[in-house]
């Protein structure tokens, strides 16, 4: 078998593919964060908790109401997104004029409260969620066994990411959004309801987190701290990509997933830290991130 750096090439391809799968979660989550930061200037530390809520929502739909995975993909983001809208209207709104720090502290506190409540109720071992029948099983690719579900996650995440990028960067609605961030007063003067647009944007970002949560439920345990474990990595992804840059978060999400995957082969002990090492290096060389504009 041919080898690359002492690792059989088949194993290496497998690891690259797995990196891509994990990267699609990073991309989906950092995309939501980037949308919220880019358009609202809020550092949404509740994102991890909202991802967790998405997974729990899917769990409740299945175990209490018998609603399956496919409907959950639609219902959970809507429900959690609606909760996001409520949070934005009642708590985040007064903070827009203040420093980033206040939004960060509020959302961080909120995340702790939500995770604490769920931990009290459901414990830390988590709850099982089965893979949908249509996506069970997998294919032998020769160099690895690819579960159908993982392939679906990569495809779905790519579609969602590209669609979001397209809407924000290439459509009229997106141009309103971007204009409203630059100069809200002027955009309002053209007769556009800026506060409502901002509320809906936050709701959309939160819905993306919940969608990632539903997609994660069959792979990981549905557990209260599933978001807390992930959110720090995702923040690093956003910082590396450039705060608020949509394309940056997508590319960095997938890219870092792959780098992390390779680290797991060559030096697994460092797989938890490699992303932060990259973050430190990027911040030293390009403080605004790889794709970020200097503000």
């Amino acid at each position, binding site marked *: 078998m041919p080898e690359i750096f002492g690792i059989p090439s088949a194993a290496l391809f497998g690891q690259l593919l*797995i990196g891509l799968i994990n990267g699609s979660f990073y991309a989906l989550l950092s995309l939501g964060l980037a949308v919220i930061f880019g358009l609202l200037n809020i550092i949404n530390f509740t994102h991890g908790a909202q991802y967790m809520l998405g997974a729990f929502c899917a769990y409740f739909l299945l175990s209490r109401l018998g609603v399956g995975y496919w409907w959950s993909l639609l219902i959970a983001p809507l429900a959690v997104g609606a909760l996001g809208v409520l949070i934005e209207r009642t708590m985040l709104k007064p903070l827009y004029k203040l420093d980033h720090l206040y939004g960060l502290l509020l959302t961080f506190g909120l995340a702790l409260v939500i995770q604490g409540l769920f931990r009290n109720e459901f414990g830390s071992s988590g709850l099982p969620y089965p*893979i949908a029948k249509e996506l069970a099983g997998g294919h032998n690719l020769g160099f690895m066994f690819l579960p159908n579900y993982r392939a679906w996650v990569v495809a779905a995440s790519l579609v969602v990411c590209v669609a979001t990028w397209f809407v924000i960067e290439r459509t009229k609605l997106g141009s309103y959004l971007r204009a409203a961030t630059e100069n809200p007063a002027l955009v309002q003067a053209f007769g556009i309801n800026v506060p409502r647009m901002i509320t809906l944007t936050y709701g959309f970002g939160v819905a993306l987190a919940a969608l990632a949560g539903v997609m994660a439920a*069959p792979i990981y*345990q549905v557990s209260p*701290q599933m978001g807390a474990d992930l959110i720090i990595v995702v923040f690093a992804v956003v910082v590396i990509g450039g705060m608020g840059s949509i394309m940056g978060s997508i590319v960095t999400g997938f890219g870092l997933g792959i780098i992390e995957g390779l680290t*797991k082969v060559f030096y697994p002990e460092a797989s938890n830290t490699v992303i932060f090492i990259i973050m430190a290096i990027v911040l030293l060389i390009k403080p605004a991130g790889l794709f970020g504009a200097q503000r």
Partner: protein
Amino acid sequence: MSAVRKLSAALGLAFAAMSAPMVANAQVSDGVVKIGVLSDMSSLYADIGGPGSVAAARMAVEDFGAAKKGMKVEIVSADHQNKPDVGSAIARQWYDVDKVDVIVDVPTSSVALAVSQVTRDKGKVFLVSGAASSDLTGKACSPNTVHWTYDTWMLANGTGSAIVKSGGNSWFFITADYAFGHALERDTEQVVLKNGGKVLGKVRHPLNAQDFSSFLLQAQSSKAKIIGLANAGGDTINSIKQAAEFGIVERGQNLAGMLVFLSDIHGLGLTTAQGLIFTESFYWDLNDQTRAWAKRFAPLNNNKYPTMVQAGVYSAVLHYLKAIEAGKTDDGTKVVAQMKKMPTDDPLFGKGSIRADGRKLHPAYLVEVKKPVESKGPYDYYKVRSQIPADQAFRPEKEGGCSLVK
């Protein structure tokens, strides 16, 4: 630029807040036996010990009849977050400022080893239930530490030899990269080699990793018959779940969960967990006494049934209080000596004893997870395959390298 700098500062602040220790209320006490339950209250091991361990300690104080005997006993608790620095800082604060006499539980071996050292320096008592490393009664043994419930040698010996003897003679380890994982891997490897098996490879993953597909793939390409999971809690759950997803068992390899708890099986569900074989030192459905105790315990723990760690906390605290009563002192070193002198007896672990190296002896059980059709309801999960008698369940005293053994 300044926005970025502010942002970095803010993120730093948030990280610091996440890792700040939560220390229980300070209270100076004399003439009071103060028990500190130090555990993982909020992360991957919280269902194994956590708040359930606090409930178990309370039950022990109640069953001992402290109030009737005129002994004043208080219980405090804290979250060590699985970090040795946080754990030893809380232990120092408890011993120096809060007049805590004994620390119990402490899952996570790296934290337990740190707390054991602090306890020895301060001449107090440390009753380990949650941590696994057999080094606690081996090269790191202490006259102030009693290792109660189980250890890595017991797990390796029980599960490892059973699997090798039934044909699983080539192994690949997926190991949690800290003191516990290393000890469990080392002890299991010895058992595998002793029984004529071989180890084809190993990979070490960080504690609390989410995705194991990469490690599982490496295990798969090793072609080993058995994939030994030298990890615990959420890590084991995710490993088993993702192994099912990648069709590991269907393609002829088998998993050996070296440390699996009742709460893990509950989280996995029987469909995924059925057929797993592992070693425990306590199961709630062993006899009438354990059943009665579990029925009392569950309502105090959010209706979750006890793990062996929580049962161990109960049993250890009960014996500790009996030793204080018998020895008429709460001086740490003297109490531990008294505990070793007295035979142990409680409804959960039966009759037993504590060795000079601090190892508590009781039987262990090789259990198999039931099929969904065999289970009568929540927590009816195990079939006991065999009982390993107390004198064979743990590492022989002279092999541990403990300096207390003459």
